[in-house]
């Protein structure tokens, strides 16, 4: 499995990662090597095998539909990069 530089760019965009152009070739090599390793999976036939999503056959636990969270907005926003009037600030989205 060989991943080209253009494909790394596409994956980085999907993953919201800015990657320096200079680093693209080494990522392409590393990702290709990892996908080669992963390709060993194809040697085993898994027809009819149920995918395992959890080590135990348990179902998601449900709880009563009641409020459990307390309002800690001030504490949480104290560690945010930029806030104003209780809102998180980001660059303008709509011109």
């Amino acid at each position, binding site marked *: 499995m060989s*991943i080209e530089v253009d494909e*790394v760019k596409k*994956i*980085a*965009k*999907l*993953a*919201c*990662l*800015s*990657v320096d152009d200079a*680093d693209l070739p080494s*990522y392409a090599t*590393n*990702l290709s*090597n*990892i*996908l080669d*390793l*992963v*390709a*060993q*999976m*194809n*040697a*085993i036939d*898994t027809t009819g*095998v*149920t*995918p*395992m*999503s*959890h*080590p*135990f056959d*348990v179902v*998601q*636990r449900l*709880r009563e539909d009641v409020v459990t969270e307390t309002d*800690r907005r001030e*504490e*949480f926003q*104290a*560690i*945010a*990069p*930029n806030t104003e009037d209780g809102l*998180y600030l*980001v*660059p*303008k*989205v709509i011109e």
Partner: protein
Amino acid sequence: MSMYHTKSVTELSAMLQAGEVSSVELTQYFLERIKSSDDKLNSFITVCEEDALAQAKESDEKLKAGNAPALTGVPIAHKDIFCTDGVKTSCGSKMLDNFISPYDATVVANMRNAGVVMLGKTNMDEFAMGSSNETSFYGVVKNPWNLKAVPGGSSGGSAAAVSARLAPASTGTDTGGSIRQPAAFCGITGLKPTYGRVSRFGMIAFASSLDQAGPMGQSASDCALLLNAMAGFDEKDSTSIEKEVPDYSADLDKPLQGLRIGLPKEYFAHSEGGMDAEVEATIKAALDQYQAMGAELIEIELPNSGISVPVYYVVAPAECSTNLSRFDGVRYGYRCEDPKDLNDLYTRSRGEAFGAEVQRRIMVGTYALSSGYYDAYYLKAQQLRHLISDDFTRAYEKVDVIMAPATPETAFNIGEKTDDPISMYLSDIYTIAVNLAGIPAMSIPVGFANNSSGESMPVGMQIIGNHFEEAKLLNVAHKYQQVTDWHTRLPEEFK
């Protein structure tokens, strides 16, 4: 000068309860040890001097009042992956270098309630992604047995700190071997519990279906005490198991007569990249010891174990790419300078703050989950995971525990594998299947073997159990530690 660092948690706890030492004295002693020795190791990211002494004072009052829980006043270190209220929680990343957690992880809260004093937060591979502690934003951690060697990872700081006795014990997390591999490399005892046994709430997520927290200590009996405090159902973790927590210290001394030990023939086969000959000889000597104690050795098969590493490098990156999408530079953590628009803010904050290994795994995961590839990668991996898990189920019909090396070789040198991610990934070949199956496993020190640079380094042996059999693993490990002294040996520079 008292030598408190030569005492186990079990011994320190007894001394505290008997009033032979105060928690303040102990805490000061270990803070002093960290101050004087950690510049050699870099095992701590944050040391909590003031908080620790305040907690120690409180513990001393509780001890005086009587009926204090067993761990009251014992100082330990937490891996910096656990959120700690009011204390920096970095996860080894530039992304969280400025993150002061507004709450405690359940593991931390449980330990606090048990009276444990937090000395500080230990270094780790960035977001727990690594097997050598070389991916940390805070620099590599050194192995106390040889400062040129890695301590293993991702819980490398925790392992190094306990190995050098800068802390009597620590917490760690294990997604593909991150407790057992560094425990093996540093000559300490570590336990990865059954998936769901210990709460994941407040433990920064890497691969949610594999992550599990556990104790790292000097001995099985120490790990039992720590697990007693860590384990339990937590409604804040949707995968936490509602099952009573036994007293893990209760069965430590059960005789091993008749114990059936399974030896996976695939792990002991001689193949390229397999077990080093000296490591193998050391493991065999430990198995002989078990036979002498009345255990029976039985060859078993784990036919799908060879596919564990490829399966892991689909499941873990896929889940990591999903989990790490929460780091967006908006609500907390790193934000880039002067973002020109919202997308620039996201991509540059992430691109500038995540290290290369984290970015690699996010990209592999993103690729595996992208449109058209899901069945070929994630679904296929989850199917194979079932086969790997079934192998263990079949094995436990014939044996009580499985023993295997923890690592194919002893601790390698810093820089030796950094240029080749794949060779780094393969250092976890014996530990990963356990996480995929969700079963518990320990690593205990069983001797020494030369590494590739000819330095004598600790060897770790894994004891792997069926679901919820932590007490049996601790019993099997403890009996060995009663008749051997590998676990009490200290690196020369830290005696």
